[in-house]
């Protein structure tokens, strides 16, 4: 460890000025993107007002630079006796103080700009409300690493101090021996190679990419149409509607190419996002690192791990890979984005990871399984039916013909098929240590939760379920709730009794 004096208030790395400037500039431009459209409406704009525009732009950039420079100068951080201190703000000054013991995670990451400028972003996560989180945009790599080490050291020392007060000599001894044991070097647990990454991309849900593409196309279409109708007085919509019958082949080609490009986009985004994924075992915790342009570094803490998800689908099965998503304790419901993803994991690596997180073997776990009842189908069916009815109405109101009729019918068949799959897959497995929840339609997800990590359990029954003897079982964890729908009421009750009994008879704390 380097001997840098962290107690002096410091600025960010010098390159930070440019980073702040560029990111601010991009944000500003993004907020005012519609200004770019003005030239289309006014002819001869550049000739008439050229100089004013250029002066305006220059003024804007200079002001922005001054502001960025000031915010760079005002952004000061230091480590004092008890806490990490941060001062920031140009107009509104703020001072943030984070006591060491409240620091939960420290993440280093690099986005594209940060890579160019050779700096790293530094994030401190706390257990409390999201507002106290600290983000430092630009630090030199070495400095960030030693700051991280220093903070972790301080935090650990703090933890030991508390222990010294609480515990007697013998406990201290065991602590020391534990420390010796813990001082093992970080080791690379697993690294994703490029072929596997490609396989992950290919086996990803391609509808994400298709959705992205469609959203983009819709946006572009609106944009172009607005301009064309404004300038050339052309009614694209009418034109388009009139030609539908002749252009069926065109539509077919369009759909196929959308799917094809969507597939390509999915593969691309997956590859960019998870490029060079590494899992490093660092003492009791795991560091996960991935990304090409935006390098992300996240820490999986053993004690904070709440839900361990394993996801597969038929293509992934063919490639023999699985995706793992880990949810950690948080004060909010964890969103899909906040889960830590480790993709393209082989079965042996999955076993290793599971063993190191939970100290037991995944393959040795035997569960008593309880399935969702077939009635669940109607719930899914009615939900989907609502969509179908809505679509039919809009199809009827606009251009109703046999094409849209067939399309809607096919969609209905697809929905029924997916609903049946969903009902078949929905189940809960229990053994003395774990809950294993299964769900999914084409894909299969298993969520593993240690029973002692449950916060509370509830049964929910709507009027129909009260009448026909079913219940939804809801499990609350520190990273959100898990639901199993339509269990038989007696079984749900038994499971609830058992889980509550296990939580109450454990002496382990949930974190």
């Amino acid at each position: 460890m380097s001997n840098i004096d962290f107690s002096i208030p410091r600025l960010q790395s010098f390159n930070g000025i440019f980073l702040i400037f560029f990111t601010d500039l991009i944000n500003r431009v993004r907020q005012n993107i519609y200004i770019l459209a003005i030239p289309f409406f006014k002819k001869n704009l550049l000739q008439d007002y050229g100089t004013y525009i250029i002066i305006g732009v220059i003024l804007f950039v200079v002001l922005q630079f001054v502001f960025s420079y000031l915010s760079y100068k005002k952004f000061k951080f230091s480590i004092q006796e008890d806490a990490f201190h941060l001062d920031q703000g140009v107009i509104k000054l703020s001072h943030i103080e984070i006591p060491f013991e409240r620091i939960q995670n420290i993440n280093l990451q690099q986005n594209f700009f940060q890579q160019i400028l050779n700096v790293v972003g530094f994030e401190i996560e706390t257990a409390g409300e999201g507002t106290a989180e600290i983000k430092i945009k630009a630090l030199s790599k070495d400095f960030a690493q030693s700051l991280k080490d220093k903070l972790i050291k301080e935090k650990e020392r703090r933890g030991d101090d508390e222990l010294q007060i609480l515990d007697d000599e013998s406990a201290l001894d065991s602590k020391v021996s534990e420390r010796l044991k813990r001082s093992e070097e970080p080791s690379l647990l697993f690294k994703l190679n490029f072929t596997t990454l490609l396989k992950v991309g290919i086996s990803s849900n391609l509808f994400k990419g298709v959705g992205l593409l469609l959203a983009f196309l819709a946006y572009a279409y609106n944009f172009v149409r607005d301009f064309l109708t404004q300038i050339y007085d052309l009614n694209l919509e009418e034109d388009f509607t009139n030609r539908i019958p002749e252009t069926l082949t065109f539509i077919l080609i369009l759909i196929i190419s959308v799917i094809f490009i969507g597939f390509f986009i999915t593969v691309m985004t997956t590859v960019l996002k998870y490029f060079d994924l590494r899992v490093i075992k660092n003492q009791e915790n795991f560091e996960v690192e991935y990304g090409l342009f935006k390098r992300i570094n996240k820490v999986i803490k053993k004690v904070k791990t709440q839900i361990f998800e394993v996801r597969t689908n038929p293509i992934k099965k063919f490639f023999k890979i699985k995706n793992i998503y880990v949810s950690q304790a948080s004060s909010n419901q964890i969103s899909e984005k906040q889960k830590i993803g480790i993709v393209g994991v082989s079965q042996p690596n999955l076993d290793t990871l599971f063993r190191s997180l939970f100290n037991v073997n995944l393959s040795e776990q035997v569960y008593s399984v309880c399935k969702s009842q077939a009635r669940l189908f109607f719930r899914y069916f009615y939900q989907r039916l609502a969509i179908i009815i809505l679509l039919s109405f809009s199809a009827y109101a606009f251009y109703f013909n046999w094409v849209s009729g067939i399309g809607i019918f096919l969609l209905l068949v697809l929905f029924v098929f997916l609903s049946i799959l969903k009902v078949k897959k929905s189940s809960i497995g229990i053994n003395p240590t774990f809950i294993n929840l299964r769900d999914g339609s084409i894909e299969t997800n298993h969520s593993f939760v240690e029973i002692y990590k449950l916060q509370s359990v509830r049964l929910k029954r709507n009027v129909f379920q009260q009448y026909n003897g079913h219940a939804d079982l809801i499990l609350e964890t520190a990273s959100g709730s898990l639901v199993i729908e339509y269990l038989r009421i007696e079984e749900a009750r038994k499971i609830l009794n058992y889980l509550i009994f296990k939580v109450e008879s454990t002496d382990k704390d949930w974190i």
Partner: protein
Amino acid sequence: MNFENLEVHLDELPDFKSVELNSIQKRYKKLIWINEGFVFTLLFAIPIVAFFIETVPVWLSFVVLGILSSILAVRATEIEKGFPLRLFGIRQYDIIYQSGFFYFTETVIPYNRIQHVEIKQGPLSRFFNLYSLRLYTAGASSGDLIIDGLDKETAQKLKAKVLAKTTIVDE
């Protein structure tokens, strides 16, 4: 389904259904109705006022009135039928609360998972001398439990009981 690998026999476990449950204060229903009445008076005022504005078509006001009435009917059923179902129970290691007519939920929270306890009183409940008890668990607020319509004595007794249990487990 068989539960053979679970070490204990499931039928021997204490059933949360066997606990005797206590109801909350009856006057809390009045408070709900006053709240509800206030909101619905405001809502109903909109279409009624609209009758006298000529630019708004009459049928629209009727439709809005119809929708509001059906919502009111549903709410009324929920309050009247659901109120007797709001019950809480205390066991040795956990607290049980059930509520809801259209969505009947039964929640069990072990004392050793409760982070902290809060007794609250709003302006209207001060008038009725009622308190609500909020039990916080770790994680999202969906896991928290709120018991409304308790008198002061019960609320404090519950709080003391829950806190005593949590600290005992801590030691």
